[in-house]
C-alpha cells in the first residue's frame, strides 16, 4: 500500500525542490510507524485509499511591501533554507503521528508568510482560500520585534476529509494576532494550529469553530522564551449529530510566561462538543501563570460533551487555575425573557449569543468581531 | 515611640521604578500626623515600605522607631516593635476565623510572651466590637472573606484596638465609608489616643480629620513631603485642592 502511495507522492512532487521531495517521501514511508488513534483513523484510512495529490495552480501575485507572502511550493524554491528548517519541524511536528506525516506527504497547497525583524504590518494579512486541496498548510514566520495580524479563512471544497495546518513561529518580542474561521464540506476534518514562541513574544489566538461537520481541533503553543505570553480564545457551536473534539494546550517553559485558554461552546440537537485544555508549567518556569476556562452550554437534553481542563504544575512560584462548566440555559433567564414577549426560540438564541458574545467581544478588531457575530447568527439559523 | 524617617528612597522591585524620592518626616510620641496628597504620589508606598511590604525595595535613607533601626527587621519584628499598619486592601484569608486570628496575633505581641487570658480577651473584644458598632458574628466569620469595603476597614480598626500598638499607621481608613461609619471609625482611633500612642494617617479627603484632629498635616507630592503645617493646612487643601502642589511637582521643587 505504501509503495503505491510513495510512487504517487513522487510523481506529484517531481518538480519541487529536492529537499522537499525527499522529505515528502520520507514522511510517506515513515508514516505507518508513527502513532495513530481512533480520531485519526477515518481520515488516514481515506487518504491511503484515495490520496488527493492535485496541486493548486499557484500564481504569485505582486509582492507585498515589507514582508513575504508566497504560495508554499513557490516559497520552497525561493526560500529553501527557511522552509527546510521550519516546515513542520518546530511547531507541527510531522513525526508526531501518522496524520501529521501524511499531511506533509500529501501536501497540496498552502501559504508562506515571512515578516522580517522589526516589520510592523498594519493591514491584516488574509489567508483566505477556497479550493479542493485536502492538505493545506500555512507556515508563518514572524521575526524579532515584528507585528502582524493574520486572518485565516479556509473554505475547503473537497468532499474528502481535509487537514488544514497552520504553524506560527514567533521571534523575540514578536506580536501576532491570529484569527481563524474555517469551513469544510467533508464529513470529517482536522485543524491544527501550533505556535512556537521566543522570549517576550505575544500570541493572541481567536478561533471560531462554526463549521457544520465533524472536526478534530489541535491548538498548541510552546512558550519557550522568557516572558512570552499566549492567549487563546475560542468559541464553538455544534448542532445535529456533529462531533467536535477540541484539544488545546499551552506549555510554559520560560520564566514569567503566561498561558490563558478561554473556550465557550454551545451544543444543540444530538451534537457532542469536547473541550480538552491542558496547561503545563515546567520546573524552573518561575513566576508563570496558566489558566484555562472551558464552558459548555447544552441547549437540548441530548446534546452533551466533556470539559476537561488539566493543570500539570512542576514549579511552585506560579499562578495557576482552571474552571469548567457544563450546563443549560438558566431557566429563570428564559422565563424572564419570555415574560417580556420573546418566543422560546428567540429567548434561547439571545441567551446563546449572550454565552458566546463575552468571548467574541474580546477579539480586538471591530470588523472581525462583527464578522464573527454574523457567522454566529448564521450558524444559529437566524439569518 | 518616635518615628523618624530620613531621606527615604524606595523603588518597585519588579519594574525598578522609583516611587519614594527622599521622604523626611518625624512623628513624635503622642502625636497624630496626617499625610495628604494627590493619588499616585507615594503615600501608600511610604507606609507599606515602613512596614516592609515585599514589593518595594529601599534604595537609600533610614527609618527608626524609638531610636531603633526598622529597615533591617522582618515584617514580624516590626509588628512586635509596636507598629501596626491598617491596610487599604486587607487580604482575605479563607478558613481562618477572625477571632482566632486576633487572639493569636495578640498573644504573639504580648511584651511578656504570656498569652492573654480567655476571659480578658473576650471582654476586650466585646467592648471593641460595641464601640465600633460591629455585628456579633463579625468575629466568627473568616478573616475579611466576603467583607464589604467598610467592614474590612472597621475590622482593621478592631484589630488595632485589640493589638494596642504604639504606632498606628492607617492607609486611607476613610475610603469607602459612609458618614456614620466614618464617625464610628474615628471614635475608635480617638479611643486609642494617649500620650504613649502615635498615629500616621493617610487620608484622601479632609473629613476624617474633622473627627480625628491631627497635630500636624503633611503633604506628599511626587514621592516627597513638600509641605507640613498645623491642622489648618487641611482646611486649606480642602478648599484649594492640590493645584498649587501640582505646580511644585512639575517644577520638581519642594520646600
Amino acid at each position: 500500500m505504501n509503495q503505491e502511495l510513495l510512487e504517487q507522492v513522487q510523481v506529484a512532487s517531481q518538480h519541487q525542490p529536492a529537499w522537499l521531495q525527499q522529505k515528502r517521501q520520507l514522511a510517506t514511508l515513515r508514516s505507518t510507524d508513527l502513532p495513530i488513534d481512533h480520531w485519526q483513523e477515518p481520515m488516514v484510512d481515506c487518504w491511503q485509499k484515495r490520496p488527493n495529490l492535485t496541486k493548486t495552480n499557484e500564481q504569485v501575485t505582486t509582492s507585498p511591501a515589507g514582508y513575504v507572502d508566497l504560495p508554499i511550493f513557490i516559497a520552497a524554491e525561493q526560500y529553501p533554507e527557511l522552509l527546510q528548517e521550519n516546515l513542520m519541524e518546530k511547531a507541527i511536528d510531522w513525526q508526531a503521528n501518522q496524520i501529521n506525516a501524511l499531511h506533509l506527504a500529501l501536501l497540496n497547497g498552502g501559504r508562506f508568510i515571512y515578516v522580517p525583524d522589526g516589520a510592523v504590518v498594519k493591514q491584516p494579512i488574509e489567508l483566505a482560500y477556497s479550493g479542493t486541496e485536502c492538505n493545506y498548510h500555512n507556515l508563518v514566520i514572524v521575526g524579532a520585534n515584528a507585528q502582524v495580524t493574520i486572518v485565516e479563512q479556509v473554505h475547503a471544497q473537497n468532499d474528502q476529509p481535509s487537514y488544514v495546518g497552520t504553524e506560527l513561529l514567533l521571534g523575540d518580542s514578536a506580536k501576532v494576532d491570529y484569527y481563524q474561521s474555517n469551513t469544510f464540506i467533508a464529513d470529517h476534518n482536522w485543524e491544527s494550529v501550533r505556535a512556537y514562541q521566543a522570549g517576550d513574544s505575544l500570541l493572541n489566538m481567536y478561533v471560531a469553530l462554526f463549521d457544520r461537520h465533524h472536526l478534530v481541533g489541535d491548538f498548541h503553543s510552546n512558550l519557550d522564551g522568557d516572558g512570552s505570553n499566549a492567549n487563546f480564545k475560542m468559541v464553538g457551536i455544534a448542532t445535529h449529530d456533529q462531533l467536535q473534539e477540541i484539544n488545546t494546550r499551552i506549555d510554559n517553559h520560560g520564566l514569567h510566561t503566561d498561558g490563558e485558554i478561554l473556550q465557550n461552546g454551545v451544543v444543540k440537537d444530538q451534537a457532542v462538543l469536547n473541550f480538552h485544555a491542558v496547561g503545563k508549567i515546567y520546573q524552573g518556569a518561575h513566576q508563570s501563570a496558566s489558566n484555562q476556562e472551558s464552558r459548555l452550554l447544552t441547549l437540548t437534553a441530548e446534546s452533551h460533551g466533556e470539559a476537561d481542563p488539566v493543570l500539570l504544575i512542576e514549579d511552585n512560584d506560579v499562578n495557576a487555575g482552571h474552571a469548567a462548566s457544563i450546563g443549560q440555559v438558566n431557566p429563570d433567564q428564559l422565563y424572564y425573557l419570555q415574560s417580556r414577549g420573546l418566543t422560546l426560540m428567540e429567548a434561547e438564541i439571545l441567551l446563546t449569543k449572550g454565552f458566546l458574545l463575552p468571548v467574541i467581544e474580546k477579539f480586538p478588531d471591530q470588523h472581525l468581531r462583527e464578522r464573527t457575530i454574523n457567522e454566529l447568527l448564521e450558524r444559529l439559523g437566524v439569518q | 515611640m518616635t518615628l523618624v524617617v530620613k531621606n527615604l528612597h524606595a523603588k518597585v522591585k519588579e519594574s525598578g521604578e522609583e516611587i519614594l524620592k527622599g521622604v523626611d518626616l518625624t512623628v513624635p510620641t503622642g502625636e497624630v500626623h496626617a499625610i495628604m496628597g494627590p493619588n499616585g504620589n507615594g503615600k501608600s508606598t511610604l507606609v507599606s515600605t515602613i512596614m516592609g511590604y515585599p514589593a518595594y525595595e529601599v534604595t537609600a535613607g533610614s527609618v527608626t522607631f524609638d531610636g531603633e533601626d526598622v529597615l533591617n527587621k522582618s515584617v514580624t519584628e516590626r509588628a512586635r516593635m509596636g507598629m501596626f499598619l491598617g491596610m487599604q486592601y486587607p487580604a482575605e484569608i479563607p478558613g481562618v476565623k477572625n477571632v482566632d486570628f486576633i487572639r493569636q496575633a495578640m498573644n504573639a505581641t504580648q511584651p511578656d510572651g504570656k498569652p492573654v487570658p480567655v476571659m480578658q480577651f473576650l471582654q476586650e473584644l466585646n467592648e471593641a466590637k460595641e464601640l465600633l458598632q460591629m455585628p456579633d458574628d463579625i468575629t466568627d466569620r473568616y478573616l475579611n472573606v466576603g467583607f464589604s469595603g467598610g467592614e474590612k476597614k472597621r475590622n482593621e480598626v478592631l484589630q488595632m484596638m485589640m493589638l494596642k500598638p504604639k504606632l498606628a499607621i492607617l492607609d486611607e481608613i476613610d475610603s469607602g465609608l459612609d458618614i456614620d461609619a466614618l464617625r464610628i471609625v474615628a471614635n475608635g482611633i480617638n479611643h486609642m489616643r494617649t500620650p504613649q500612642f502615635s498615629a500616621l494617617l493617610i487620608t484622601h479627603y479632609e473629613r476624617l480629620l474633622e473627627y480625628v484632629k491631627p497635630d500636624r498635616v503633611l503633604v506628599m507630592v511626587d514621592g516627597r513631603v513638600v509641605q507640613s503645617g498645623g491642622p489648618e493646612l487641611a482646611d486649606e487643601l480642602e478648599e484649594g485642592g492640590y493645584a498649587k502642589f501640582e505646580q511644585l511637582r512639575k517644577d520638581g521643587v519642594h520646600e
Partner: protein
Amino acid sequence: MSQEEDKKAIQKFSQEHYEYGFHDDVQPIFSTGIGLTEDTVREISRRKNEPQWMLDIRLNAYHQYLKMKLPDFGPDLSKLDLSQLRYFQRPTDHVARSWADVPEEMKTTFEKMGVPEAERQYLAGATAQYESEVVYANLKRDLSRHGIIFMDTDTAVQKYPEIVKKYFATLVHPDDNIFAALNTAVWSGGTFIYVPKGVHADEPLQSFFRINAENTGQFERTLIVVDEDASVNYVEGCTAPVYSEDSLHAAVVEVFVKPRGFCRYTTIQNWSPNVYSLETKRAVADENAVMEWVDGNLGSKVTMKYPSVYLRGRGAKGTMLSIAFANGKVVDQDTGARMIHQAPDTSSTIISKSLCRAGGVCDYRGEVKMDENAHGSSSHVECDTIIMDDDSSSDTIPLNKVAVGDVAMEHEAKVSKVSEEELYYLMSRGLSEEAATKMIVMGFIEPFTKQLPMEYAVELNRLIDFQMEGSVG
C-alpha cells in the same frame, strides 16, 4: 530483641495452639510464608472456617488477579513486588517490637503531638492490642439494643452470612483493578456494619474499638449496609503516624446506602513513608440517599485512592471532602474522587485540598460522569493545591463528561504557593513567618477539619503544626 521477650510476647498475644510447633531457636514458620498461590488462598479460607461460597469468591478472584496488570496511570509502582509479600498473618506474625526499636522520628512526633503513652506503644507496633476492651464492651451493648451490627468482617461471615453474601463483592468486582482482585482473594479483617431500617446511630462508630492484631492488616475488607431511612457515621484511622511493616495496604470498602439512608465514612491515614496505600472505596446511593466520604491522606509513600459514589437512585447525593498532604521527596499522593450520576436529579460535590512540600507530589485525578439517565443532575468540584516549595509538583486532571444536556456541572481549581499577600498581612500583625504559614495552611484545610470529630481535629492541628516546623526558611 531477645529470644525470651520473643517467646513471652508470642505467648501473651496468641489465642490458639500452634500446629506447626514452636522451636526455641527460630521463629515459628508457617507454610504460607512469602508469595501467593492457590494453596495460600485455600489455607486462608480454611483457617477462618469459611463457608464454601466465600472460598469460591476468593478462588475466583485469585484467578482474576493472575490475569491482571498494574495500573497504567499514576505513581510509579515498579518497586512494589507483589511476590515478596506475606499474604497471611496471624497475631504471632506481628512480632511485638520493643519500644527501643521504634524510630526516633516517630517518638518525637508522638511527643510533640501529646499522644498518650498507652497509645504510643500501640501505634508504634510495640504492642499488638490496644487496651480498649472495657470501652468497647459498653459500646457493643448500646449498639445491639438498636439492632446495629458492628464487628469485624471475619466474624460477620460466620454470624450473618445472608447479609454478607448478598452484598460482598457486588460493588467492587475483582476485575475492577488488580488490587481489588488481590484483596478479594486474600482479604482478612475489616469492618462490617449493618444498620437496620429507620435506626440512627447517634455516636460515630470508630474502627479503633474493634482493632486488634487479628484484624488489622494489609487486605482489610469493609462492608457497610445502611438500610432505608437509617443513618451512620463511621470513623477510622488516626492522625498520628502509624508504623507498618507491611509495605502494601490494599483495602476494599463497599458501602450500600438504601433509599433515604445516610452514611458518612471518615478516614484519616498517616502511614509511615514505606507504605503503598492502594485502596478501592466505592459506595452506591439509592433514591434520596446521601453518601459522604471524608478522607484525610496525611502520609504514605504512595497513595492511590479515588473514593467513588454511584448515584443510582433518583435524588441521590454524593459528597467527597478530602485533603492530601505530600511531605517529602518519596511521597506521591495520587487522590481524587469519582461521582457517577446514573439517575435523574442527583447531585455531587467534591472539595479537594492538597498540599505538597519538600519534593512531594500531589495529584488530583477526578471524574464526574453523567449518563443518559442523569437528567436534572448537578455537580460541583473545587480542587485547590498549595505547592509550598520549588521541589514539589502537582497535576490536576479532572474528567467531566456528560451524556445529557439538562444538567449543571461546574469545576474549579487553583494551584499556587502560599500567598505572599496573605503572609505579609498576618506577619504585619506580629505573627512569625512560620506561624503565619501554619495559619494559612490550617485555613486552607479548614473545610475538611470542621467535619471531623473533635479529637481528630485537635490531633490534626497538632500534626500539621509539627510538620510545618522548620518548613520555613
